[in-house]
């Protein structure tokens, strides 16, 4: 199968980085520190290294099956019935995550920006926006990512760089944490693994690369850029606030944005700009999830009715988003799905690799 639309290497890298930077950047430092305490930066590095291994596995599979997506080669490797079954589960989780992440996004809007706007509206607007994107064309999707990426990272840097002057070194020491057990340390690492695990979007894009065989280098670059910002954010947040203060706060990055004073006092409040850029980050991440879901469902049913699928997904995601009763519910559900799914992907990728070797399955040379 030849694809008319294609994605360049740079776009490929940016899709990965843009997907990694998502909703969770607002509360991520707290999630990690809740588990790993002062050892959060170290735990993040460990989590990223483990994720990196998963990334290499996924890239290897992409290289081995250059013309197929994740869904496609799952079917080839595991057989039609079993492969489809696992992929249906995978897509359902993606749909639930769309719902929950949108809800988390809407909670931030209501709690910190637009208190009188009904939450239903914020959720609907975001989901509607995602669903009207034309999914029949992968290069459109890539262009959207490419366009928003600078708008995400520049404000993030504007918040993070001036924060350097508020760093207290005693917040970072000792880097192994105060009486952190190995289990706590590893659950901190798992939080980071979950937060960056959405790099698996790459497995849906590889067949559309100009040269799918050369997916490894840009894939690694995209991952490194995305995770660099995540690590940077966790470290700076910890260095500025310290463990105790972060545990008090709901959205620590937002508070960090409120503390920043840009040199020269051009802007009194940077947090409004930061929130806007964060909305872009949320949008690109949700768009990637939506992309996985729509393209995935279409591939399972071998149809091209992308628009129909995306409009059917819209109300379902909307109701999932409304399901949690309060903000504590939102986060406890998210936790379950994040950790559950990251474990699954990680094991599944290597499972696929082993089976592919054993059954000597290989992608057709295109």
């Amino acid at each position, binding site marked *: 199968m030849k694809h008319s639309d294609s994605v360049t290497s740079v776009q490929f890298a940016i899709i990965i980085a843009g997907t990694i930077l998502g909703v969770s950047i607002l509360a991520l430092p707290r999630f990690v520190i809740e588990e790993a305490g002062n050892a959060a930066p170290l735990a993040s590095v460990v989590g990223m290294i483990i994720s990196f291994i998963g990334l290499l596995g996924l890239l290897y599979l992409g290289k081995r099956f250059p013309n197929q997506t994740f869904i496609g080669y799952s079917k080839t490797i595991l057989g039609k019935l079993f492969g489809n079954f696992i992929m249906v589960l995978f897509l359902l989780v993606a749909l639930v995550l769309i719902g929950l992440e949108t809800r988390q996004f809407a909670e931030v809007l209501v709690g910190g920006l637009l208190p009188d706007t*009904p939450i239903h509206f914020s959720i609907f607007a975001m989901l509607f926006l995602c669903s009207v994107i034309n999914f029949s064309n992968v290069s459109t999707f890539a262009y959207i990512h490419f366009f928003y990426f600078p708008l995400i990272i520049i404000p993030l840097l504007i918040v993070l760089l001036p924060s350097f002057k508020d760093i207290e070194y005693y917040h970072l020491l000792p880097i192994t944490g105060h009486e952190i057990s190995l289990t706590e340390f590893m659950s901190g690492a798992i939080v980071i693994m979950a937060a960056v695990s959405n790099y698996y979007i790459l497995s849906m894009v590889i067949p559309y690369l100009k040269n799918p065989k050369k997916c490894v280098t840009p894939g690694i670059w995209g991952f490194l850029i995305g995770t660099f910002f995540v690590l940077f954010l966790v470290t700076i947040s910890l260095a500025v606030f310290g463990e105790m203060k972060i545990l008090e706060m709901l959205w620590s990055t937002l508070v960090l944005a409120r503390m920043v004073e840009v040199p020269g006092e051009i802007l009194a409040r940077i947090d409004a700009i930061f929130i806007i850029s964060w909305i872009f980050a949320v949008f690109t991440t949700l768009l990637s999830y939506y992309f996985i879901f729509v393209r995935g469902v279409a591939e399972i049913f071998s149809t091209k009715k992308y628009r129909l699928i995306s409009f059917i997904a819209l109300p379902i995601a909307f109701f999932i988003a409304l399901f949690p009763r309060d903000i504590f519910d939102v986060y406890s559900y998210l936790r379950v799905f994040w950790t559950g799914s990251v474990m699954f992907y990680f094991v599944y990728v290597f499972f696929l690799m082993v089976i592919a070797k054993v059954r000597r399955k290989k992608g057709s040379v295109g």
Partner: protein
Amino acid sequence: MKKISWLILLLMASLFLSGCWDRYDLEERANILGIAIDVVDEEAENFTIPEITYRDKDTLAGEEENIYKLTAQLAVPGKIKLGPEGGGNNTSDKTAWVVQTAGFSMKDAMANLQQQLAEKLYLGHLQIIIINEDVAKIGLDDINDFLKREYEVRRTAWMVVSTGKAEDVLRAAPPIETVPSLYLSDTLENALRFGKLPREYLGKFWIDLADIGIDGVLPYVKLIEQERILVNGLAFFKHDKMAGSMTPFEIGVFLGMKEKNPGGYGMAVSTDDGGVYILESYQRDSNIELKIKNDVPIASITVEIEANVEEQSNVKNITNRKIKEIEEEASNVATKKYNKVVKKWQESESDVIGIGARVRAKYPEYWQQEVKTTDKWAEIYKQMTIEVNVKFEIIRTGMEFK
């Protein structure tokens, strides 16, 4: 089929025409620029608290609660004439509106205040929170909780402790600025730029409160001549309670040890021949070294100060050799003074430079085994040896060479 789908699309599009739910015109908002918090003396001042949040002495489970008196300075653009600036004899008491209410807590008082006003209270422009010394001594946790929870409050606003009534400070009427709160926060903002105050605004203060092994400080102000404020030192805290205050000179000491730049405080030094020199710090550098000896931490702090000679009286004899003598003398005097100030902090168990946090960072095992709680740390801190060594270095002498 096609017509129906078009119709559905059009109906959906109408959802986007709803406008903005959160629109509040500027003139519908009561922008609170400054808040002053005092303790009310119920009998003497005859204040009654309306039952709005219904928090009264019955619901407090027998706990004796203080009643706060909250004074807020409002600016309602378009409703209160702010300008023309500097034109005529508009003093600031006419341009900003000061309202007052009382409550059992911050939220209670704010709710009472809202009940009296037509405009929606808006805290997004809050510049300064003035706290009466007595309130600060009772504890700030309850006040802070409301301010932290409220998303409108800026973390770069100032919180200050006042000698005497906080409301009087808020009512200060500077003749050059139409809104007093803005003048007050400018005073602090500029003091920060001149190196006379640490960067200790709300956000930073809250971080220090939450941290283990460090105590917060807040600017300590005093109203003079009903129109401006004197930065009279720093109030230092033990947990959320004010434990004492430093003089402005001691702020210099504090800033020196915390390595906060630029320098701003001067110190007078006299030599044997009767000459008096005022040195103003220019750049501060400090190094805190910690050791554990026999299960007791020992801190030795080396402060290096680069200073300018700002004034010389009685004599006229600055030479290369004389400079050395002045530097030595200044180092001696400063070392003595710094040590005295540190003793004072230790006596009031207020760890403002964060020795505890540093010990905890550097010797986590020691902290886990010997210290554990902040109360235990306060005990250790009180008795531990802290040695300060100050080295002055004169780098410039101004436009005069002699």
